[in-house]
């Protein structure tokens, strides 16, 4: 008697509407395409997330580490109703946003991960994620937490999110904030941007493959100086971590 173990271990996904791709012009005139990633594209995305697990700045390390596990969970069918959206500029990976659907009315936002700094890519990506939950999945609210102060300022403060502190968020059980449909509708004109349909040539370039980001966030160029800047004379934190990686210490 054989048991289909995989069938037992996989959660049963609810059929969810796909995210219709959109595009937007960035401040430098380039165009960015945001589309839903297919499961089999995840292995192409993981190598660009991994290096940031070792960047101890702006909470890149925890966001990258958690995102990596969420992407892997999606790829190996170990999470229910997760979606992954990717933003690409000229095919290059610029941002990843993900989350999942908890119920027909409630969405759970996971992460907003930006690999291209300085062009408000994160703002565009986050807004697109909210559009997916509210407009496309037609949910009533999305639960959100922020790991970094920058996230907090841009989302909790700017969108004026409601407190749902009695609901533990799936990210670490922290008190949740909520973007309700009303709040989203209020902000629609200024914060929800982008156009559809995506022009053929842009969509083709994006779908052709996920190219590595040309200038992703990196760790400090001078590890010893960085540890000194954190008032650490023993040079323990960053160096130890780098040593474990087998990397060179300047």
């Amino acid at each position, binding site marked *: 008697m054989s048991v289909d173990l995989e069938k037992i271990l996989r959660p049963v996904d609810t059929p969810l509407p796909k995210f219709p791709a959109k595009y*937007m012009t*960035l401040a430098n005139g380039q165009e960015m395409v945001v589309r839903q990633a297919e499961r089999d594209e995840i292995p192409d995305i993981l190598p660009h997330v991994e290096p940031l697990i070792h960047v101890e700045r702006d909470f890149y390390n925890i966001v990258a580490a958690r995102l990596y596990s969420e992407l892997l969970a999606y790829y190996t069918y170990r999470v229910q109703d997760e979606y992954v959206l990717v933003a690409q500029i000229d095919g290059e990976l610029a941002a990843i946003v993900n989350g999942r659907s908890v119920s027909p009315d409630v969405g759970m936002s996971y992460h907003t991960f930006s690999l291209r700094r300085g062009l408000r890519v994160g703002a565009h990506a986050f807004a697109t994620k909210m559009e997916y939950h509210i407009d496309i999945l037609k949910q009533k609210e999305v639960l959100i937490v922020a790991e970094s102060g920058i996230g907090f300022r841009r989302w909790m403060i700017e969108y004026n999110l409601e407190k749902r502190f009695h609901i533990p968020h799936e990210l670490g059980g922290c008190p949740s904030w909520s973007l309700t449909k009303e709040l989203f509708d209020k902000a629609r004109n200024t914060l929800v*941007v982008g156009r559809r349909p995506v022009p053929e040539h842009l969509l083709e370039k994006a779908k052709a493959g996920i190219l590595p980001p040309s200038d992703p966030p990196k760790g*400090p160029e001078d590890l010893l100086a960085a540890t000194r800047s954190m008032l650490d004379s023993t040079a323990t934190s960053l160096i130890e971590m780098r040593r474990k990686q087998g990397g060179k210490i300047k």
Partner: protein
Amino acid sequence: MREVYVAGIGITSFSRLEYPLVEIAAYPGLMALRDSGLKKVDHLYVANMGGGRINGQTGLASAVVDHMSLTPAGAETIENGPASGASAIKQGYMAIASGMHDVVMVIGAERMREANPLEATDFVATLTHPQAEYIYGVTLPALAGMFTRLYMEKYGVTARHLAMVAVKNHKNAMDNFFAHLHEDITIEGILDSPEASTNNPYVADPLRFYDVCPVSDGGACLILATAEVMKKINKPMIRLAGIGQATDTHCVHERKDPTELLAVREAARQSFKMAGVKPSDVSVAELHDAFTILEIAESEEVGFFKKGEGHLALERGETQIGGKIPINPSGGLKAKGHPVGATGVGQAHEIVLQLRGEAGKRQVKNAKVGFTCNFGGFGNNVVCLTFIKE
């Protein structure tokens, strides 16, 4: 009074620096010593605004002088808000011109990004008047927003003109290795496209994201010396020929005509008079564009253009590199960055580079007279410097 020359210069990149504040100050000092060939200085001035509050380091100059093994030279920290840099250069000038010292090192340094953005905003807001502005939640961008609205109403400056300043300065910064932002933004991206409201959201309307300079870390250094020292080290003779400083009311609302920057006007006048040149003699200028409107307003107040016509000259391309009076070839505060204490010294660094003919792709041809305007608070304390190539 003796003549004062620039013997050496140094600068860090103005971006996010994961170095202690003291090292951000020391590195350009080291570069300037190597540039000048000098081994020692008689005195050190360090311009800095946030050391105590943001970085937990008061008495910065005392820390830097030892860090650079320059003890027992005297050292002082100079704080004049965003005009700290030019004020420190002024102190260096007076030390040499008076005969007290022969070689003085002036460093400007700031590490603002050690704090989170909310703390950085609060910190800069302490420049405002405590009872009459601060309690209302007024920040420098708020004052600039109110100023911009009046300027638009009175002189017809539009959002497009502000965007043109940002685009020009970003373009200039693409050729500046040290600049904070290397982003070739376009008018389409920040103003015309349907996504402009997310790309370029309002900060203090009518000012938008790309009208406000970034929060930067950075350091810059100038070594000033007498003519005798200059002869020995065989460096180009760039003379600090004119200095001007003036103040205005603390509260912006107390100014007779809030569209006038009287402190800029007076400081520039003094600086040109002392140097013996006119605004029309200036080959290249670095103006304080913490907000894009300020580049336009200052270009008028210092005398490059008539009051209310700065934006027209901008339209005609007169302030581009290659134009009649190139302004902010380095990218200005908008694209090069604004580490508050370092900015004034950074502006002087760019001017010296230009007058020496060492500015590479952003070189202004035949630069002979350079001018900087370092704007403290919101126009209530301004220091202007004039440099002449001999």
